[in-house]
């Protein structure tokens, strides 16, 4: 059996099936979330934002955990393989995208519900830091050099982020408790949720996770093709031009 890279494609029967299931899930989520499920007693229609916001945030954190674990797997001599590096990179790219979605939907929801786009809550602030950190991570991946150089540099950076994020979270929390009034984030959490609303959240998490796996598989294979192009692109182009000259 040939690998996807050998056939110059990123899709397989599995990813096609996964894609169909993901799209069907998104359609179902849109129908249930936007039309069928009721409005919230306290939050009104704005609760529907949650069906994209919560899964988005969950996915973003999942993506960065996958990036950190893959980076550790690359640095560990016994499991060193560029595949781990590509998975880490693909996962971070998808993670940054979903982090942006969850930050934007979150601040829109906050404006409607709390009357403010932003609050200096530790969870919010940490999320923003995570976003910036991984934007930096992606920039480092694009620095150039050999594949191994890129892999090692970015793997160390991803593990440093694992050190950084809890420290940021802890210090922001400390800053908040000593210097600010109680955060608004805790308000309204004691409401009991309607069964269908809870189902929508649950469905959202599953659908987004499937979408994540789908995107990362394709992206990882695309990165592999990109690496192969970098390795052989110039030689192949030279050979082609020479062949033309000899005709």
């Amino acid at each position, binding site marked *: 059996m040939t690998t996807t890279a050998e056939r110059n494609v990123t899709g397989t029967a599995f990813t096609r099936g996964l894609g169909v299931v993901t799209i069907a899930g998104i359609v179902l989520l849109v129908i249930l979330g936007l039309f069928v499920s009721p409005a919230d007693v306290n939050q009104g229609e704005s609760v529907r934002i949650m069906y994209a916001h919560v899964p988005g945030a969950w996915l973003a954190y999942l993506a960065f955990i996958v990036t950190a674990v893959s980076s550790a797997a690359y640095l560990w001599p016994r499991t060193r393989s560029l595949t781990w590096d590509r998975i880490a990179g693909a996962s971070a790219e998808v993670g940054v995208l979903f982090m942006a979605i969850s930050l934007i939907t979150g601040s829109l929801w906050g404006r409607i519900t709390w009357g403010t786009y932003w609050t200096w809550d530790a969870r919010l602030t940490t999320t923003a*830091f995570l976003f910036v950190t991984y934007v930096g991570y992606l920039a*480092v991946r694009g620095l150039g050099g050999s594949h191994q150089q890129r892999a*090692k*540099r970015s793997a*160390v950076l991803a593990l*440093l982020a694992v*050190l*950084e994020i809890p420290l940021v979270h802890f*210090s922001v929390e*400390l800053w908040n408790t000593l210097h600010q009034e109680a955060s608004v984030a805790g308000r309204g959490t004691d409401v009991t949720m309607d069964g269908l609303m809870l189902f929508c959240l649950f469905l959202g998490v599953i659908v987004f996770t499937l979408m994540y796996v789908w995107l990362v598989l394709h992206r990882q294979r695309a990165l592999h093709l990109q690496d192969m192009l970098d390795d052989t692109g110039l030689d192949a182009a030279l050979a082609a031009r020479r062949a033309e000259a000899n005709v």
Partner: protein
Amino acid sequence: MNDSNRSLASFASTWSTARSMLGKDLLIERRGRVLTNQVLPFALIVMVMFAFALDSDAVLERVAPGLVWLATLFSTLFIIARSFAVETADGALDQLRTTGAPPAGIFLGKALALMIQLLALVVVLIVAAVVLYRADLSWEGGVLLVTTALAATSGLAAVGTLYGGLSAGAKGRETLLPLLVLPVVAPVLIGATRATESAFGTNGIAVGEGWPWLGLLAVFAVMFSVTGAIAFGSLLDD
């Protein structure tokens, strides 16, 4: 050689590498005078600009501690860039690697040199805050401030050396370094600013309230120093 002798020898070689790196970087600064002739004037003009932007004595007095550390962070970025510009020029870093010097020693030496330069910078900025922003400093507050400066600059130096090494030699590092370093040093900004507020007695905060923030700064400095000493080798490897 038995095991304890070997670890003693490797410790000695790490330390001697650190000392020569430190001496080299300070000598370069003494001859080049980039810190004194370029970075310090920049930091001072930033302090003056803050006063233009905020336009009120009362506000300036209130935010003086934060401004001191913001100006420090901005200037730190230049010092880090300078610290690794001298290493990547003329392939100096490659030659350094061929000597087989322990990477942990290189890391510690460069971090110490960075820390000493940062300390000098912080001292000047605190004097500037006292002069320009009417910050008030008691003896008791002074002790807290010196300890804060030591803890904060060692954390900044460790992070700076680590990320400076990471982006050394890469194209576009001038713009990348701030993006990488600033989010990481946010805890230092928070901790050092709160401790300095106590030392200055801003808003009537007692000096004693500043000491717990030193814990945060110390944890930060230790974590990144240890990580840096371990990870620096793999950043220089290839």
